[in-house]
Each structure stands twice: as structure tokens, then as C-alpha cells.
């Protein structure tokens, strides 16, 4: 059996001298699958994403123990640029597009790490836009003037420009209208179908569990539940906590 696309083993993280943010995290993203990470605000979801992408230091965090492996290679000490070159890309929470740059420039910046020649850059752009046709007509617009949904598509497109093997998506549905959430959901599935492995952090557990194969639940910096997404979806406690369904309703609906 081939190694997973992403494996996190016994990972602990702290901010500053005392505040432990993550403790003993074990998580795996098999190749070509969507794995979702659920949990309340402050559970440590974004911290885990930063530990995987190498951006922890930006927020003053450090890995105190454990390992992050990308396609079987230990990348725990690698800089963010080295991880992107190895095939990891991230769309940050809150979109975080480059507001002063045009859509075309945002996308080009996403491919910077690959040092593309012109033809390669065009190919990567076409591939990214094939998932995000809406961006076609917005190429010359400053990213800061896009709607929330368009910015989210741009953030995903920018991450795709480095042609990643593993894509980290941090709260892609945050603040979006339900109809746009549906569009984003379809885009994620489309990207998965092309073979990209995805780690999806979501507050919108219903959406996340509807497209993921596996799920993990993070609370207070620890993994408290994990399993097949379908099992988590059918779990009364998960339903009550994250799907907005009361335990009795949940029990009734599965009876």
C-alpha cells in the first residue's frame, strides 16, 4: 500500500512559553481523498493547518514534538517554500488574497515557487481555471474588489497554481451565502476528482461531512473522535454538536 499523501504523527504545538495548543495529534490524509477536520472555535484547527504548512512561526507557535510527513518525506523542519515545492498548498482562513494585485497576478504569485516557463504557466493557469471558470472574466480586476465568494475561488485557484498533491483548505465556506457554499463544495469535489488529496477544515460540518471520506474532531487541542465521514454524520453526538440536530432528533432520524 502506498504511503498517505499527508501524515501527522504525535504532533504537539505550543504558543509562547506555556500555552499548549495541540497535544499528540495523529491524522492521515490518504491519496486522492478528502479528510475533514471539525471542531469548535479555538479547538486548534487553524494551528494544525499552520503546523502542516510551516506557517506556525508567523504566529509565534512552535512544534514541541511529533512529525509531519508529506508523501512519505519528513517535512517537519522544512520552510513553507520547501513544503510547497514538495506538493503542499494552502488556502488560508479568511481567503487572504493579495488585495492590491489583480486576479491574474494573484494566480501568477501562486505559481511563483514552480519557476514556470511561459507555456507551463499557461498550462497551470488553464488547469486551475478549469475548476474555477468564474475567474475567467475577472482576471484584470483587483482582488480586493471581488465578492467573498469570488475571493474564495481566487484563494483556491491561487493554491492550485503550484499544482499541489495535497491541498489544505481552511474554512472555505466561512461567511459565504448558501448558494455560494454549494458552488465551493462542487469545486472541492472537482479538485478531488482530479487526484488531489484535501484536508478540509470547516465549521460547516454538514457540508464537510457530505464530501469527505474521513473525519477528525478536534477539541481543546486533542483529537477526540475520528472515523469514516458517514459514521461521524450518523453519530448523535456529532449531529448535536456540529450539525445542529438535537440528540433525540438524531436518534429518531436514524431509528
Amino acid at each position, binding site marked *: 500500500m502506498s504511503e498517505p499523501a499527508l501524515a501527522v504523527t504525535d504532533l504537539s504545538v505550543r504558543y509562547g512559553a506555556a500555552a499548549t495548543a495541540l497535544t499528540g495529534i495523529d491524522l492521515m490524509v490518504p491519496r486522492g481523498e478528502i479528510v475533514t477536520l471539525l471542531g469548535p472555535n479555538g479547538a486548534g484547527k487553524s494551528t494544525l493547518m499552520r503546523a502542516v*504548512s*510551516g*506557517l506556525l512561526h*508567523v504566529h*509565534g507557535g512552535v512544534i514541541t514534538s511529533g512529525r509531519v510527513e508529506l508523501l512519505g518525506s519528513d517535512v517537519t523542519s522544512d*520552510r*513553507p*517554500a520547501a*513544503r*510547497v*515545492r514538495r506538493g503542499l*498548498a*494552502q488556502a*488560508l482562513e479568511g481567503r*487572504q*488574497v*493579495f*488585495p*492590491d*494585485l489583480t486576479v491574474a*497576478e*494573484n494566480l*501568477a*504569485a*501562486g505559481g*511563483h*515557487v514552480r*519557476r514556470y516557463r511561459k507555456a507551463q504557466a499557461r498550462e497551470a493557469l488553464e488547469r486551475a481555471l478549469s475548476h474555477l471558470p468564474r475567474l475567467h472574466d475577472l482576471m484584470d480586476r483587483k482582488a480586493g474588489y471581488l465578492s467573498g465568494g469570488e475571493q474564495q475561488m481566487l484563494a483556491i485557484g*491561487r*493554491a492550485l*497554481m*503550484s499544482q499541489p498533491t495535497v491541498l489544505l483548505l481552511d474554512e472555505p465556506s466561512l461567511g459565504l451565502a448558501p448558494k455560494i457554499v454549494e458552488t465551493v463544495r462542487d469545486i472541492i469535489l472537482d479538485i478531488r476528482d482530479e487526484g488531489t488529496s484535501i484536508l478540509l477544515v470547516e465549521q460547516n460540518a454538514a457540508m464537510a461531512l457530505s464530501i469527505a471520506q474521513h473525519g477528525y474532531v478536534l477539541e481543546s487541542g486533542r483529537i477526540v473522535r475520528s472515523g469514516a465521514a458517514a459514521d461521524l454524520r450518523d453519530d448523535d453526538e456529532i449531529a448535536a454538536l456540529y450539525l445542529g440536530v438535537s440528540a433525540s432528533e438524531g436518534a429518531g432520524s436514524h431509528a
Partner: protein
Amino acid sequence: MTLFLQLGFQGVALGMVYALIALGFVIMTKGSNTFNFAHGEFVAVGAYVVVALMPHLPYWMAFIGSVVVTVTLALVAERLLLRRLVSASPTALILATLALAVIVHALVLVVWGVGTKGSAGPVGSGTVEIGDVVLTYSGIATIGTSILVLLALLVFFRWTSYGLALRATASHQEAAAAQGIDVGRMFALSWGIAAALAVVASIFLASFPRIVSPTIGLVALAAIPAVVIGGLDSFVGAVVGGLVVGLIQVLGAGYLTDYGGGRLHEVLPYVLMLVVLVLRPYGLFGSRGIERV
């Protein structure tokens, strides 16, 4: 009218020098999130190294040598100071660059002494007359070279991969890092470009008149009003601000000699800077996110 045109030419030439220095401030501020008060001293180092190498090398080689020395100094300062203070408060960063300015200034005094030194300038001392207006070779060279440098910067920032990466870093550091852009390298790149601009500015600043003195670093700081007037994060603003300051200084020197002991023109850019800070803190072309240093 002739006096106005004459002063206008000189003002544009001086303004272009300020524009180059102001662009250095803006590139460093955008690229590394640091307003470097030592930038004026980089201008001084640039001027002195050219003067030191001139007796031994052709002028253009002395210029290249100065670019190498000044850029190296900037990169060392960025690496040893800025990179270690990346998470520090803006106040700590500003104080650190002020300390750096004092150290570099002291270094200049130790190496080259407190006296003035003669400077040849990149071109001869001839003139061209258009009607009654006299255009100096050095003025023409200053304006022409500055325009070429500005065009080169435009090409770099708009059409090269590193220029785009630098703009992306300036726009959002964490997002740039998430795309695999080496943010540390972009910090160094921004300081290197600013230092190279400082050397270009220094050779023309040393042409008005043809001497180099330790106060050249302070003269270069007259670009700070240019940065504030144009907008701390705007390349266009730096150029416009530089031209405004250059014109105000030269026109003020020409028309206001009977006021303020003949030194009123030195104060005018700072008065305009304060007016802009009060009425439009982000400058004429800056974005509202950036207001005060």
C-alpha cells in the same frame, strides 16, 4: 518666466533625486514592513565609496563598486537586525533603524573624517542653453538617469516573477509565505534594491554642488516629506512626492530669499508634510490602511 523655468528645471532634477530615495523608503516599507531611518546614511555611504574609489577606477567602475559595498551593507543590516526583529513591535523596529542610522553615520565619520570631499559627478560641468534657460549636464543626466531607473523598476515590479513576489509579500506576508514565496528573501531583496537606489541618488546628490560631506545623510532625509506627501505605500506617490519636494525647495530658494533668513525653503517640505499628515494621513496616493509611521 525665465527664472521660473530655470528654477523648475533644477527643481525637477533635485526632485528626481528625492524620488529615488523616497522609492527606496517605500520599497523597504512595503517589502519588509519596516520604515528604515538609516536609509539616508546608506545614501551617504554610497556617495563616499564612489569618492573613495574615483582616484583608482573609472567613474562607472567606482559607481559599481559603491553599489556592491552599499547593497552588501544593507543586506548585512537586514539579516542581522531586521530578520531577528521580525516579530517585534513597529516602535522597536523604528528605534532599531534609528540606532542603525547613528552607527552607520559614525562609521562614515571614522572612515572618511568630518571634512568635505570633492566629487567629480557622473558627467562634466558643461551646460546647454535653450533660450535664456541654462540646463546643466548634471541636471539633464539626473533627470534622464532617474527616468531610466524608474522605467527599469516599473518593468521589474510589473513583469518579472521576483517583482510580483515582492509585491505579493508587500500585500500580505503570510499569504505570500503560504504560496511558497520566501518572505525572508523578499525582505533582503527590498533592502538591496533600496540600497542600490540610494547609490544612484547619492551620485547626483553629490553633484548639487560637487562635494560630499557627512551631512549628505541628513540631506537625503528630506525625502521623508516626499514619502509622506506621496503616501507611504505608493510607488507613484514617492515619485510625485519627490518632485513636489524638489520643486518646493528650489522655487522657495529662488523666490523666498528675503524671508526667514533665506532658509525658509528648507522648512517648506516639512510644513507641507505636516499639512498632509493632518488632512490626509495616508498621503496623496497611499492606501487608507497605512496612515502614520
